[in-house]
């Protein structure tokens, strides 16, 4: 997959943006379905929320929050690159976006596991 010509930071930033985008697009219908349970079956919604107490579900949520934050910050980098005056520091910006996404998803995870 990571063939030699792809082994550089901005290609990896591209792949992260693509993978996170597709993952979020697949997650959204499930997300919407679960929220609509508030309308159709409120008890089922609470049963579902009870599942989120499981540590593995929390870890999955952490992953989803990371993908969302990475997609947003990575996308902002791309728009800044395309619409603001050119900067040569794209690798730094891409790394900053990933670090920011990690910080956001860690805050979420700490909130989720604290009592």
């Amino acid at each position, binding site marked *: 997959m990571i063939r030699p010509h792809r082994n550089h930071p901005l290609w990896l930033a591209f792949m992260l943006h693509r993978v996170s985008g597709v993952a979020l*697009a697949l997650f*959204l219908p499930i*997300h*919407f379905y679960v929220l609509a349970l508030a309308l159709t079956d409120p008890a089922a919604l*609470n049963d579902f929320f009870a599942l989120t107490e499981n540590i593995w579900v929390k870890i999955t949520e952490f992953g989803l929050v990371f993908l969302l934050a990475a997609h947003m910050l990575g996308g902002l980098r791309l728009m800044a690159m395309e619409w603001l005056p050119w900067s040569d520091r794209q690798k730094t910006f891409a790394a900053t976006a990933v670090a920011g996404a990690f910080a956001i998803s860690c805050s979420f995870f700490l909130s989720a596991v604290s009592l």
Partner: protein
Amino acid sequence: MLTTRLYMLQRLTALIMAPLVLGHLAVMIYAVQGGLDAAEILGRTQGSVLWMLFYGAFVAAVATHAAIGVRVVAFETFGLSKSVLTPLTWLIFILLLSLGLRAVYAVTLSGVLG
């Protein structure tokens, strides 16, 4: 497989969503404390025009953004022709929009109207 029109739609919906995602992330970090609770979440959102507009705009933007994004990935990965791509793009848009608006209705208006 992006023309200027689709590109602009993709970027403009992204710009609209940037503050909405930040808000959504903040709410998630806040709401998850002490575990998710349906009554707590619905108590915040039911009957709130502000949350309805917030999530309504979010759903409309994300349905557009995701449909165009998946279109590009489907084209570059599977080499689908334009006659397949255009209906696929619309299908994803309509699916996400209808499911999303239904969810927004469920958490903001159903308690008031229903």
